[in-house]
């Protein structure tokens, strides 16, 4: 039954991803398409009002535009959070957010991380929920989509890497807004609230008075998933019955967050004019995902031996921290998907996952390319593809080339920066946190699990995931500043480096493909790609994983 549940979701995902991939390739085409007729009118108005000139950009102009627009966004968000107490749209009378938490929150939503060191229902006004949270929830995945499109244009040798502002607008008009409207309506139909009324007051059966938080939930939840954002309206996120009331909404949310990351490889296939190329990238991501999902499910269904010894039945698996309405299968699937797509929304508490079950989200975020967040996940796997070509490509007796472009010193330097940054911003702060009082003070469960808690927080920040192991007391200056910085580096270092790679590749004369060329659209390359991700990406984290989840698993067995 569990198997069928999971398979159905994944098959539906595949059926949706292929046409969406084709749609994305067309929606962001540099050529004129029929879509221009459908959306062109609205877009022209936007270009006109905002003074956007539609001209091709160099990679430097593109990267500058990304940074300038993102700095503007984070400034707006920060100011709104600081001033929310005085602004309208605040029926529940929420006070201003303190400076460091505001910094952390603004950065968190800017970077598509959505790490929440505040609790949604009590920390934010409705205006902040809409003008900061929902606003950034649209613009940051749009930024991610723009970047991946620019990157793929560079790799596939299009006319140019495009225009950032045009891509940003199109990501809204052609992808995120239409999809968000559809998903919002489906969620409302399932009972997710969408209201501007303040907190409701109810009298419980025992006669006590209870405050029930509500608000414009459905609109936030839809883009939360579609944009691989993850920040919940409520503190407990998609475990809350108003965010995720039924198994059907659970499936809808899973599909929403996987849709764009899973369709981008197909879009890549269409852009390279080799569908097989898209399938190989998708295949590598899927295989890695299935292994992770298998571990998560297997570990959770087998229950927690420590609880079993304490006399708690583990017959249906480890249900601690999980919602009964979802059960093991939908919880494990949700966990595997939310960290694969680096969304960070949760429908169960990751802190209470069994040790190996908790290893899965950590592992997926460490790789950061098992589908990954909107746009950036595909950028990352393509970066690994270039790396794979560089290492293994020499074995065919030619200097390495990917899609007809030589991979040389310059690209390797840029890729080196990106592959260095990820372990550095995870491991260094983890080491600092664990060695200092500031860091260890927040740990609720010392020992190996404490390592997992700290590691999870920084991994989630670096991968721009945003889910928390929770359990960690993280609204302190130390955590707000450290995770804030990690999120910023986690997002922009690789984005800029990869845009530079795209620019550099685009400038090269393409090399014609011959019998002697390494093919990147067959099974052999699939194996090389996965091996590269595992050996370069994963082995780095093996020692620290051994001390965290693995040690915990071995000691409670």
């Amino acid at each position: 039954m569990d198997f069928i549940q999971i398979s159905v979701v994944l098959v539906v995902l595949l059926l949706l991803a292929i046409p969406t991939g084709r749609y994305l390739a067309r929606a962001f085409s540099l050529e004129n398409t029929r879509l221009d007729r459908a959306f062109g009118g609205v877009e022209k108005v936007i270009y006109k009002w905002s003074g956007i000139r539609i001209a091709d950009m160099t990679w430097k102009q593109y990267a500058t535009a990304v940074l300038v627009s993102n700095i503007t966004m984070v400034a707006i968000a920060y100011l709104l959070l600081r001033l929310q107490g005085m602004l309208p749209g605040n029926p529940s009378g929420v006070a201003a957010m303190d400076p460091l938490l505001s910094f952390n929150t603004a950065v968190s939503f800017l970077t598509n991380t959505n790490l929440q060191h505040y609790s949604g229902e009590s920390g934010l006004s409705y205006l902040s929920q809409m003008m900061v949270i929902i606003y950034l929830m649209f613009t940051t995945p749009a930024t991610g989509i723009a970047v991946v499109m620019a990157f793929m244009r560079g790799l596939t040798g299009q006319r140019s890497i495009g225009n950032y502002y045009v891509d940003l607008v199109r990501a809204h008009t052609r992808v995120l807004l239409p999809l968000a409207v559809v998903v919002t309506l489906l969620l409302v139909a399932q009972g997710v609230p969408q209201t501007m009324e303040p907190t409701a007051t109810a009298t419980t059966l025992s006669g006590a008075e209870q405050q029930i938080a509500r608000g414009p939930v459905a609109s936030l939840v839809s883009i939360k998933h579609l944009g691989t954002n993850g920040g919940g309206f409520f503190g407990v996120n998609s475990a809350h019955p108003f965010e995720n009331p039924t198994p059907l909404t659970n499936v809808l949310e899973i599909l929403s967050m996987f849709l764009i990351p899973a369709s981008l490889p197909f879009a890549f296939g269409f852009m390279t004019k080799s569908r097989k190329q898209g399938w190989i990238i998708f295949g590598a991501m899927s295989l890695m995902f299935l292994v992770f999902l298998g571990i998560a499910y297997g570990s959770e269904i087998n229950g927690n031996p420590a609880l079993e010894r304490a006399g708690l039945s583990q017959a249906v698996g480890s249900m601690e921290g999980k919602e009964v309405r979802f059960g093991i299968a939908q919880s494990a699937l949700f966990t595997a998907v939310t960290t694969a797509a680096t969304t960070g929304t949760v429908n169960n508490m990751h802190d209470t996952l069994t040790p190996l079950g908790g290893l899965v989200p950590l592992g997926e975020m460490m790789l950061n390319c098992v589908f990954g967040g909107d746009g950036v996940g595909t950028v990352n796997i393509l970066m690994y593809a270039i790396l794979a070509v560089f290492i293994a490509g020499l074995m065919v007796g030619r200097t390495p080339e990917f899609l007809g472009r030589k991979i040389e010193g310059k690209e390797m330097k840029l890729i080196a920066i990106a592959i260095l940054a990820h372990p550095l911003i995870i491991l260094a702060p983890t080491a600092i946190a664990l060695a200092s009082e500031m860091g260890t003070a927040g740990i609720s469960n010392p020992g190996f699990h404490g390592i997992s808690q700290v590691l999870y927080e920084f991994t989630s920040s670096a991968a721009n995931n945003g889910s928390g192991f929770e359990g960690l007391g993280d609204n302190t200056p130390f955590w707000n500043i450290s995770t804030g910085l990690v999120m910023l580096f986690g997002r922009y270092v690789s984005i800029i480096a990869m845009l530079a790679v795209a620019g550099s590749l685009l400038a090269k004369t393409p090399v014609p493909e011959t019998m002697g060329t390494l093919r990147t659209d067959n099974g052999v390359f699939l194996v090389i790609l996965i091996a590269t991700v595992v050996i370069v990406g994963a082995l780095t984290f093996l020692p620290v994983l051994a001390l965290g989840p693995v040690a915990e698993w071995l000691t409670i067995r």
Partner: protein
Amino acid sequence: MSRTRTVAFPKDLYQRAFVEALKKLDPRVMIKNPVMFVVEVGFVVTLLLTILPDLFGGASDRGYNGIVSLILFVTILFANFAEALAEGRGKAQAESLKKTKQDTKARKLAKDGSIQMVSSTELRKGDLVIVEAGELIPSDGEIVEGVASVDESAITGESAPVIKEAGGDFSSVTGGTRVVSDRIRVRVTTDPGESFLDRMISLVEGAKRQKTPNEIALNTLLVSLTLIFLIVCTTLQPIASYVNAAIPIATLVALLVCLIPTTIGGLLSAIGIAGMDRVTQFNVIAMSGKAVEASGDINTIILDKTGTITHGNRMAAEFVPVGNSKADALNRAAAQSSILDETPEGRSIVELAKKQGLAASELELPGAEGVEFRAETRMSGTNLANGTQIRKGAVDAIKTYVKELGGRIPADLDEKANRIATAGGTPLAVVEGNVILGLIYLKDTVKPGMRERFEELRRMGIRTVMCTGDNPLTAATIAREAGVDDFVAEAKPEDKIALIRKEQAAGKLVAMTGDGTNDAPALAQADVGLAMNSGTVAAKEAANMVDLDSDPTKIIEVVAIGKQLLMTRGALTTFSIANDVAKYFAIIPAMFMLAIPQMNALNIMGLATPQSAILSALIFNAIIIPILIPLAMKGVKYSPMSATKLLSRNLVIYGLGGILVPFVGIKLIDLVLVGLNLV
């Protein structure tokens, strides 16, 4: 096809490499190889800990620190040894070349025409010298007067002398070679220290060796992997301390050294040097490692027809009778007309006739006299003792000749001659008395084995283009016969350079061979230009490789060597990185086993103790370098096949092998350590 030059290695090659390896321990030298430099720093740290076990606070096991330190030292030594050994072979070769470079006396021709005896080191560019039979040519130069046969064995190893003459493409001579006959006047073209021999010596010595672009890119990757593992290891200590699983410094250093790509880091420069060395052993001098690397990437090879694809002289392929003459009569007459003709053409006619069953007795013609080919008559032949005149020659010349003698022109002559011409051959008519017996079909023959080689190149994804001055019909025929992919007929020198530019504009890398001065611009334009040593100085200077044997087909071998070099680099990188999997499984449980006994569950190799596990991994890491030195020197096996097949094969050997071999190796070393009671 080509001989390989065997260099007599001095007996102390290994000994010398060992001394060099020690010299390379100098940190100022080591820093050029960042991966091994990190190992050296680790060595110093563990050495200090051996002397002062409580240097970094807390007691540590002095004996263990000492052993780790020793293994690290040996690891560095192995890597240095690999490089020194590769360099040593070049040095040995250079030494054998230096022996040819002796100070000679030269007869310098002064402006007033008098001859002075000077030392060869005093010669400057533009000086004129006279060299006579038996003398060494004092410097590189060009013959301005005379013809001589020159023994170039000092440079090429080829003992048969070659003919050099003033003017044309065979005028250049190399210093250090010996004039065997005649007397020549030579204009010196280089100053002392810049001669071909000097350049060759410095090239094989590796003095000017620069890292190639791919090597630099690979180095970037290796450095970044090293940095990643440096981050992993330095952050591990505080994280482990949090759960009271502090790790001894020596173990941490051991983990670091095992994880960083020391195998490829130690062998990378040896692979590059050995690649150039392999080219040298093929008697080709590559001016830079870059050129060798580029030859692996070649997409198109441009080959001259004459001398490269074909023998360059036309051979008889068939006898075609005309009119009502008999085949036997034509055979006999054709052979008899050529019996005194010593040109390759003439000999091939006699041979063909014999092959077709002509009795040897028919060719014993006492008293016959030969008539040589003359430009006016355009025919040659034999006057037999009985007065019969047999002639062969161009069809229209023979027609005029026969008409003069009152003979008849067979009706099918023109048609058959045209058919031969259309097929790309040359028809020669044979006439006995005034009767035209038939035609000899002469054609340019493709060298044996060329077809197979082009087929091989196609499998490697390389296109071959033939350049020829012939008309399109002839060119097409040869192209079809040789199996080249494309051809350019009626090609002028500037067509060649245009062709190269066109290919390069399409992103292709082009290789070509050439020897003439008019080839020089094209040789310079090509990504890989292989000049013939017999060619002009200009050609040799424009090219980035020179073939000492002057065998134009050798470009194909050079391409294979380039591919082999890149493959070796990729294979050992893959192997080195794949090794990490097993090393992790050896070291991680060992590292934490004291603090967390349950970690033994990860000890899937069943290594005896934590110490033996760490030492085994470290020892494996060290000895794999010398084990792989022969592979780095010889290069991985290369046979032409499609990239996908090649990749699958190498992936299984070096990728899968790289994962599995260390599991076995580490376990074996562990067993030995336990067996010898060392741990």
